[in-house]
Every structure is written in structure tokens, then in C-alpha cells.
């Protein structure tokens, strides 16, 4: 039935050669995916050789195979982590039952929604970032954005694999829809708001990979706890790749901050912009913007969906198995601070209903660690500047704080006060225009743009001077 040589084209550990259902679905979907990639993937660099990592098997040696590849020839594969035949549902109302190898009928719709929502973010970020390579501060960074993009593409494949294999005709329809929506499109936007925000400068890209991909990490972790075993195993494997994306964001921001500190010191009036760099305040504003937008991705603080997902054993807490001893989350409560009628009110919420907030707490802790390192890096350069995360109440568009305004410390303020200070707290059009003006692509091996420090080391043991992209 096939015109595709599956084994060589699509590396996998799901026995694709013998799976007629999956073959049929992919036969239809794969050409559309490639067409989407040509239309919406990195623009104008598709024919160039890029030094990319490809996963060719799920074992220790196979998941990180490096070579020059033209992106359309990238071998997007399908990998699940090893199956544990003894695995059980480890939390919620079905705790102790064998983990599901097929989708339980009663949870089919819910699971599909979880998978589609996760899957939709993957192509969305590729679309958001398709022009970025042109203004890359170095070939190293150019290669990184391409790497991030092809792996987001692979993550889309991973979600599509689940839709094709376990959700029948509806799953195939949803897989098509994943290619039909477009980031920022007025008519067919991506599902989540943060994935419709433009990402057309490198400071935004580093913030995105730092904060939005980190949301992805926590979502994938909670899905890796899932009682639906194929989802759990898929998510586990995706996490290995997601780690690199966060590395790009985390170190990218650190490099920008270090360089900003250096230029601040170099300038007689302490103005990094006068030296062609980015001032520390501007970096802080971008952090404020993206961190707050990404907090929205976790959903409402008090959520019946979150409770249902946990009860059903579909979505657990971060490190559910490892970090918790009690896995029903019943008879327990979490204090949530509401903003009601002009004052803060602490309300006890049933723990299961507060699962979004529990995950958000873990996420914030993770971000705090990164910010601490950045502050240290800035201080090590000799500038007294503390990078901070805004309060979780600041600049929210979803959840219990979305109706009111708060300053970055989380104090309630009026709309007028917010409007008056917004330019100090969030990126302005002028800031963005300035960034575009200084972000000219640097295409020579070993060279780096003035506004960012070079990385401490290269990719896969190569030097920074390595020709990561053959332009």
C-alpha cells in the first residue's frame, strides 16, 4: 500500500513497518506535514546544511546523532521511552490498576483534548519563529533555532502518532487541524494565547524557549505520569529534547545579560544602548512580559478540568511518583489567595481542583533558580543589578487575577496606575523597534553580535567557531 520506505524515512520504535493503521494515517498526513513545513517552517534556509541532532533510536546512543542535514530531509521519527510491562496507574481514582495501553472509552474525549492542546503548541512555535534565523547573532545561535524548530516538528509528530494510533477517524481529523491552524492568524489562531504572540526578535526567542518551553517541560512531566501508557512514554522521550530548548533560552538570556552588564560598564554614562547593546531594564521588561504570559498557560487556579484530569489518572503532578507519597489528593486542601471585592482573601481549595496552581508553583520555583543564576552572572561582571521575576499576579490574562491590575511586586493598583507605569514594566513598541535595529544577522563562523556574549562552549563538543550552518 505504500510509497514510503518507512524504516529509513521515519526512524521509530513503534513497529511502523507492521502497523497498517498508522501507515495509512501517515501516508495521508506526512505529505501535508512536509508542505506545512515548507510553508511555515524557517523561511529561506530550507536548502542549507545545518549541523543538527537527530534521534534515530530511543536508546542511549541513538537519540543524539549529529550531522549536517537540510531541514526538509530531517528524519522526523516516532519514539517512545521503554515500556515497563508492570507499570500501574499511579494516582487518582484508578490507582493500582494496570496502566492503560489503549484509551479508556470514558476518557477518550478528554485525552484527545489534552493531546491536541499540547500538540498545537509545537507547530505554533515553529510558525512564530520562522524568520528568526535571518537575524541570528551567530551561526551557533542560527543552528540552535533550527534545532529547536525541527524538534518542535518532531514533537508534533509524537502527538500526531498518538492521535493516529489511538483516536481513530477523529484523531486523524484533529491531526489535520493541527496543520490548519496558524499562529497569530485572525481566523484560525493557535489554541493558546501565548502561542499567538509574535516572536520576531532574539530576546523574545530566548524568553520563549526559557519560559514557554519550560511550561512545556512541566506539562510533559505531568503527562509522563499519565495512566495512559503511550502518552506517558511519548512525553518522557520528548522531555529529553525539550531540555535542549530550555538550555538555549536559559543560556541565551544569561549571555544577553552578561553582555548588557559589560556594555553598561563600558559606557561612560552607563548606557548599554549607547554602546549598541541592550540595557538591563529592557531585558527585565521582556522577562516580565513572557513570564506573565507563560503563567497563563497553566490554566485557572481553581479548575474542575484539572481535578477531572487528576481523578481520571490522566495528568499527574510534577514528579508525582517520585516526590509524593500520597497519590489520591483527596481530603486535602490548598490555600489560594483570591482578589475579591478589592481585597485579598485566602480560600481553601480542594487539592485536586488546585492542580494547575500546584504545577504553576513548581514552574515558578524552577524559574527562580534560573533568575538567581542570571543575577549572579550580572554581578560577576561587576554590575549591581538584580534580575527578578514579577509576582504571579502581574499582567495576567487568565485565572483569578486576570480581572484586575497588579504591579510587578503583586500589589493591587488601578487601571490608570497600571497604564502610567506599563512602559516601565513591559516592552514598548520603541523597545521592540530598537531591538530590530540592532539585530543584524552575523553569518561568519566564530563571530558574534555586539549585543550578546558568545556561549561558553559549542554544540556536541565542537568549538564556537565551528561552521554550524553552511550558508
Amino acid at each position, binding site marked *: 500500500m505504500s510509497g514510503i520506505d518507512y524504516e529509513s524515512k521515519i526512524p521509530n520504535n513503534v513497529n511502523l513497518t507492521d502497523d497498517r493503521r498508522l501507515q495509512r494515517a501517515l501516508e495521508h498526513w506526512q505529505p501535508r506535514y512536509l508542505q506545512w513545513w515548507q510553508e511555515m517552517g524557517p523561511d529561506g534556509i530550507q536548502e542549507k546544511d545545518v549541523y543538527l541532532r537527530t534521534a534515530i533510536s530511543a536508546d542511549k546512543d541513538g537519540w543524539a546523532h549529529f550531522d549536517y542535514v537540510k531541514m526538509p530531509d530531517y528524519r522526523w521519527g516516532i519514539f517512545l521511552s521503554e515500556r515497563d510491562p508492570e507499570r500501574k496507574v499511579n494516582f487518582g*481514582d484508578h490507582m493500582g490498576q494496570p496502566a492503560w495501553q489503549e484509551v479508556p472509552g470514558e476518557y477518550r*474525549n478528554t485525552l484527545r*483534548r489534552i493531546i491536541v492542546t499540547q500538540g498545537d503548541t509545537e507547530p505554533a512555535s515553529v510558525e512564530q519563529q520562522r524568520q528568526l534565523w535571518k537575524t541570528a547573532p551567530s551561526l551557533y545561535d542560527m543552528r540552535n533555532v533550527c534545532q529547536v524548530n525541527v524538534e518542535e516538528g518532531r514533537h508534533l509528530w509524537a502527538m500526531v502518532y498518538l492521535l493516529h494510533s489511538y483516536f481513530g477517524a477523529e484523531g486523524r481529523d484533529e491531526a489535520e*487541524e493541527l496543520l*490548519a*491552524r496558524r499562529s497569530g492568524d*485572525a*481566523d*484560525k*489562531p493557535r*489554541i493558546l494565547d501565548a502561542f499567538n504572540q509574535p516572536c520576531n526578535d532574539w530576546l523574545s526567542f530566548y524568553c520563549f524557549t526559557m519560559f514557554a518551553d519550560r511550561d512545556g517541560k512541566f506539562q510533559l512531566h505531568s503527562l509522563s505520569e499519565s495512566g495512559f501508557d503511550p502518552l506517558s512514554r511519548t512525553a518522557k522521550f520528548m522531555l529529553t529534547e525539550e531540555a535542549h530548548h530550555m538550555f538555549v533560552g536559559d543560556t541565551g538570556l544569561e549571555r544577553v545579560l552578561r553582555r548588557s552588564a559589560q556594555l553598561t560598564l563600558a559606557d561612560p554614562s552607563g548606557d548599554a544602548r549607547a554602546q549598541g547593546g541592550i540595557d538591563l531594564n529592557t531585558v527585565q521588561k521582556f522577562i516580565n512580559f513572557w513570564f506573565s504570559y507563560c503563567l497563563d498557560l497553566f490554566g485557572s487556579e481553581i479548575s*474542575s478540568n484539572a*481535578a*477531572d484530569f*487528576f*481523578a*481520571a489518572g490522566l495528568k499527574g503532578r510534577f514528579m508525582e511518583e517520585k516526590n509524593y507519597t500520597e497519590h489520591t*489528593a*483527596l481530603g486535602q486542601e490548598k490555600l489560594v489567595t483570591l482578589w475579591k471585592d478589592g481585597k485579598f482573601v485566602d480560600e481553601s481549595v*480542594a*487539592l*485536586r*481542583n488546585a492542580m494547575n496552581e500546584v504545577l504553576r508553583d513548581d514552574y515558578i520555583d524552577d524559574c527562580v533558580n534560573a533568575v538567581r543564576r542570571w543575577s549572579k552572572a550580572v554581578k560577576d561582571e561587576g554590575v549591581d543589578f538584580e534580575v527578578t521575576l514579577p509576582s504571579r499576579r502581574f499582567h495576567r490574562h487568565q485565572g483569578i487575577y486576570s480581572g484586575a491590575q497588579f504591579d510587578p511586586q503583586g500589589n493591587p493598583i488601578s487601571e490608570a496606575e497600571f497604564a502610567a507605569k506599563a512602559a516601565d514594566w513591559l516592552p514598548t513598541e520603541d523597545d521592540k523597534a530598537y531591538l530590530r535595529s540592532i539585530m543584524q544577522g552575523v553569518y561568519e563562523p566564530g563571530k558574534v553580535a555586539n549585543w550578546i556574549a558568545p556561549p561558553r562552549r559549542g554544540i556536541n563538543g565542537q568549538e564556537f567557531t565551528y561552521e554550524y550552518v553552511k550558508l
Partner: protein
Amino acid sequence: MAHDSAHLDSPPVSFDTSPDRYHHWKLAVDGAVATLTLQVDRDSPLRPGYELKMNSYDLGVDIELADAIRRLRFENPQVRAVVVTGGVPKMFCAGANIKMLAGSAHAFKVNFCKFTNETRCEIEDATDHSNQRFIAALNGTAAGGGYELAESCAEIYLIDDGFSAVSLPEVPLLGVLPGTGGLTRLVDKRKVRRDVADLFCTKAEGFRLRDALKMKLVDGGWPKSKWDQAIADRAQKIVADGGGNQGEQGIALPSLKHTQTREGEVETLKGTYVSLQIFHDKRWCELTILGPESAAPASAAELHAQGAAAWAFQAYRELDAALLDLRFNFPKIGLILLKTKGSVEAVLAHDAAITQLRADGFWLAREIQLFQSRVLRRLDNMSRSMFALIEPGSCFAGTLLEIAWCADRAYMLDDPDGQNAIALGHVHAGTHAAHNGMTRLQIRLYGDPQGLTTVAAKTGAVDAQTAEKLGLITRAPDDIDWDDEVRLAIEERVSFSPDALTGMEQNLRFAGPENCDTKLFGRLTAWQNWIFQRPNAVGERGALPMYGHPQAPVFDWNRT
């Protein structure tokens, strides 16, 4: 507070509102196109205890909707197209608020659903009879009651944005039914094939435009960039097809006024034409309607000048308000004694004048009669026993005689000098159809076609003995028996099980074939009311109380 509410600690429900007082709807009229925008104020629930999240509704939201629909017909008769749309991003309407339902007493839930059903029937009535075509412009997801509201519109359009969907998630998500016409209108009105409807009603997240269109759940849709223009174009097309704006001048609908007093167990609510005397300890009430005192309007101009003060309109408005008051604020009153006072000739004269003006094409006359019909149907739908008491000085004639025929029984005093009379008018021939499309006379004489022909040929006064013979009343006791017979009937009636009575009355009132409306109030509502009582829905671990809570519902798997 002198009322007998299902919620003893909360104030009585008031149905009096106007657009300047709306919390949840915006009514904008631009020539022949009106737009009704639902933007629910989450912090203004009818009773405290729940937030109206996601454009979900409670009775307060629906009271405003009913008011808006009524005002469109009387205050803006030039309107031909009514666009019903949402005012919050991504969500047209999420249906009835679940926390509100879970926290409401059974009687309140039932009456809430009945009222919302009647309101949706009013939307269809406006489309069918008043040349006001409603279109649902779903610019976000329409779930549950949100989609049911759309179903009551003549046309449904859904935005094509990749996530907005139509859905009826009640069965899979809440363990209850889409009980505001949802199921019935799918198969009876929109004629969705039954197995397709089955798929639709069990998929909680519903269907987006492409599939919804295939399944006939919607009539069309557009992407966001074309949406506003397409809806505006469609509205203009409807206006053109409906004959355009004819420049009809509306009348104002001022608030109704009544006094309310209580002495001991007797509470009296007194309006201009309708008064309600509640005997709390006896659990019955007397509802008395005064006939017209002035001459019937002689011209369209005169009727228009009278406006909301015209007897034929005001008396029925007051009757409507009294019925809603009884339903929501006096749930223990099990028996309504229907009385009238005035001149039968005057009632017939007013009926004749309105009918003539309607025949001449005057919109207000048409609207008044349509309104009377709706109030009569609301009366048919009362879950209370109703006896009409026809005594000398009463005016059960024409439109008021219809009221006696809504009642479960009609007692007519056979007075010695034969003065007590009802009067047949021309309105019995089809002006005021019951929900099943039949006249009350046809329903009444369903088993006696010959008798029906005889009565249809008659007009004017009919005395007690003739009325009994013709089957127009139940009993005609003479003056010696009257007091005792009526008293015994009343005391017996209020001693029976109220549940059994409601069930019995609803089964006996509507002889003849079924249609979409009767199924909706009979089949759908009855099943919903049963489900609303069952532990699977409302038990400690039932689906409604468990919704939004951390644990899944626990069902009793026995099929009944």
C-alpha cells in the same frame, strides 16, 4: 417578607425589568435590525452563592431575555431581524449555570426550566407570527443551554475559528438532559437524524463548523475576518425578505403596578385588572380578572394611543405577572380559583374590535392577540390545579372564556333566574391555539365532533344548563348545592398529593396529537424532572454535585 418562596431566606423573584436595568444583555436596535448581545455579569447572580462564569445563565439572565423579546415586539415592531450573539471572547454561552442548578431546590429548577422553555417558544412565536426572524450568531462556543438558545432561533451560524463548537454536553458531563428544548428541537425542528443526534448529544466537546454543518446542527459559518459583514448581510437580507422596515411605531411597556398586603393568613396582590388573594393556610388562591369598563377601541389610532393601557393587553400582562408570581414566590399554593368580574358583552366587544383591527393589518392588534395566546399557554402549563368559578356578575366570554377552558374544572352556578351566563365569541375558532396547535374547544370536545360543530355555530350568551349540556363547563350546581359542592371540591383537591395532581393534570389537559412544543413540555421536561430527582443526578455523589469537584460521580447502574 410576606411570601412563600421555595427559598425562604431569599427575596421574591421579580420579573419586572427594562433594558436600562439589564445586567447581562445589551439590546441595540438599528432600524429593522436588532442585536441582542449576551455579556453576563458574573458578579450579578439572581441569588448569592455562585458566579455566572463563561457567559452561563440563571433565571435573572433569562428574565432579561424574555423582557427583551417582548419589548422588541411591542416597542420595536419595525424590527425584522434579531441577531443573538455573544459579548465575551470565545464563548457565546455555556448554558445554565451548574452551581446554580446544583444549589437550587427541585421546584425552583423545574420552574426555571419551564420559564426558559417558554421564553424560547416566544422566540419561535416571534419568528413564526410577528415577522421577526431570530438568527443565532455564535461567535464563540455554544454549549448546552447556549446551543438550545440557538436552536430556538430560525437560523444558526457558527464562527469558523478552529475551536468554537456547538455542543450538548449534559448527558456525558452532568448526568442530566439538555432540557430546554435541546433534544426535541434537534430531531423535531432541525430534523437532525436520530443517530446523528445521538452522537452529538454524547460528545461533550461538541463539533466545530465543518462537522456541525454536515450534521445540520448549524446553517452556516464564516471565519473571523468575514464574520461581522456576513452576519450583517444576512440580517439585511432577512429585512428585505420580510418586507423591509414598514415604519411601524411601537408602544412603550411601562412597569406594572400592584399593591401587596397581608392580614394574617390572607395576602392580597391587587393590580388594575387582576387581583390575587392568597389563602396561605388553605393553600389555595383566588385569581380574579376584571373585564373592560370602557368602550372598545374604535380605531387603530385609538388602540395605539391606549397602548399598554388597553384592557386586552394590560389585563393579560397582569395575568401573566400573577402566574409567574405564583410559580416562583408561592409554591405551596396548590389550587387556583379562576374568577372574572364584569360584562360579557364588553369582553366580546373588545375581542371583536381587536380582531377587526388585526384583520385590517394593524400590527398592535395582532401582537395583543398573540400575547394573549402566550399567556393562555402559560396558564395551561401551570403545575397547579385550576378551577374556574362562574358566578353571576362574572364575564367568562371570548378570550376570558378560554381561561375557564384552561382550568381543570369549571363550576357554573345554575341560578334560579337564569342570569348567570358565559358567552361564546369568535376567538374560539383558532385565535388562541394551545401548545399542540388545537383550539381549547377542539381539545375539550375531542371525543364529540358533532358537539364541536354545534358549538362552533353558536355565538353569544349560554346559560348554565345549556353550557353543561354542550360540555362547555364541568358542573352546574344550583344555588342550594353550589356552596357545598364547590367547598368540597376545593378541600378535596388540596388534600391530594401535589405530585400526583401535577402529573395527572398535565396528562389530561392536552388531548389530541403531539407536536414539538408539547413534547418539549411533556416528554422532555417530564424526563428531566425525573432525572433531577434521581440520586444519579443529585445524590451525594451524583453528577450535578460532583461537577467541578475533585471526585468523579458514582452511579447506580440499574436501568429503570
